[in-house]
């Protein structure tokens, strides 16, 4: 008899902290392929910290994170982070051209595939940054363009789960629509799952994702249906 495959992402009894300050305890959630989950809650409740913890950039106080049934230790830390990638709210680009920034993750030891040049050009066009800007110094782009370049850099690695922290905070309504359509398409076609911290009602209204409402710090709340 075959057992059911494990959830794409499964978080059980997770406790998170910012430095020495505990924020949340006993967080539980699961994501299946194609799921979009909006994480909302009051300021300071630990939404960004939750994403950072899932992306294993900081340790959890307790609890487990499993991606396709395996812990980060079983994946290997670098492989896990490539599969569950975080895109931060503030765009972080190196003082290089856009193209060099996009290629950067393909120079790491863990990278096993070549840089998908054509896909990069297509995504630059699809998100209205424009492939012609690939040779431009990344830090001379507008903040909104930089935010989209950061998203493209993450997508080029074909993550299984995308952790997006306020991905549309610097975007105009048209660009929000483009990002939303792209993520939804990838969710449908490739089974990409996304966790999105957002205060943007436009995004929540368009995506109609499942909601994960976090209480104020130090509380506990199960995932909303």
């Amino acid at each position: 008899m075959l057992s059911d495959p494990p959830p794409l992402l499964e978080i059980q009894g997770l406790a998170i902290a910012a430095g020495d300050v505990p924020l949340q305890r006993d967080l539980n959630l699961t994501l299946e392929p194609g799921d979009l989950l909006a994480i909302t809650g009051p300021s300071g409740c630990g939404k960004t910290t939750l994403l950072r913890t899932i992306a294993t950039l900081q340790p959890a106080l307790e609890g487990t994170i499993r991606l396709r049934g395996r812990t980060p230790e079983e994946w290997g830390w670098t492989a896990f982070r490539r599969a569950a990638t975080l895109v931060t709210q503030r765009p972080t680009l190196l003082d290089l051209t856009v193209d060099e920034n996009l290629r950067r993750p393909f120079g790491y030891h863990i990278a096993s595939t070549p840089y998908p040049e054509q896909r990069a050009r297509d995504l630059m066009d699809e998100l209205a940054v424009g492939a012609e800007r690939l040779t431009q110094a990344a830090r001379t782009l507008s903040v909104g363009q930089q935010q989209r370049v950061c998203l493209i850099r993450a997508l080029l690695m074909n993550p299984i789960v995308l952790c997006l922290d306020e991905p549309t905070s610097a975007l105009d309504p048209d660009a929000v629509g483009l990002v939303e359509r792209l993520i939804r398409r990838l969710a449908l076609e490739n089974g990409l799952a996304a966790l999105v911290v957002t205060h943007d009602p436009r995004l929540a209204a368009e995506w109609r994702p499942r909601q994960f409402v976090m209480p104020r710090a130090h509380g506990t709340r199960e995932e909303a249906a």
Partner: protein
Amino acid sequence: MTDTVQHLSLLQILIATSLVVFSAIVSVFFGLKLEKQLGIAALRTIGQLFLVGYILKYVFTVHHPALVLLLIVIMVAFAAHASVSRAKRRYARVQLDAFLTLTASSIVTGFIVTGVIIQIHPWYRAQYVIPLIGMILGNSLTGISIALDQLLGDLSDRRDTIEMELAHGASAWEAARGPLADAVRRGMIPTINSMVVVGIVSLPGMMTGQILAGSDPLEAVKYQIVVMFMLAAATALGCMMITLLAYRRLFNAAQQLEEGKILRS
């Protein structure tokens, strides 16, 4: 040529003190309020140098390896403390790391110079070992202090960039390589600069001392070349080791940057 050494009397040293008095007069004249600091600094100079002079004289006379080793350990401990206290940032056990680094750089380069190049027998001849270790420590601690400052500042200031690289699958080493290299480079710069200008802009203290003590200038130059290369090696080794030790302390087994461990001094 050693018979040309000009011995200084206490009176002559007292006359030299008048030069400090002149500095104090300048301070009073311009209202710099440095007189007290100058006085304390001058007294410390006299006190510390006489103290070390008597200690060295005792160590030279007793001529025992244990005593030489004890003196070296004390010098390394003071240098470790000085290198850390100069840095703007620190982390727990940084003093231990500085001590280990300075011990390693002094032993490795000190042994190569005294054992292989100058070939001192026995190895603990204090008149060679102590001044050479002193010079190694003096230069290494400056390099270590600069490298540490640069690295800890970079890891704090460039945390976003480092974590972005980690988030995209970089190993801790790949993400930290830039700041580590910058730190070693910054720590090495003063030593490289001093090698570039030596003899043109400045005559090094040791060479000047040897010449004043009556040595043949060319003999002093040969020693100085060995010393400069020794200092370059010691500083390179020291900067490299302290940055690697700091890297091991600040990145954990999960390849996460523990930036919270970096504290402001």
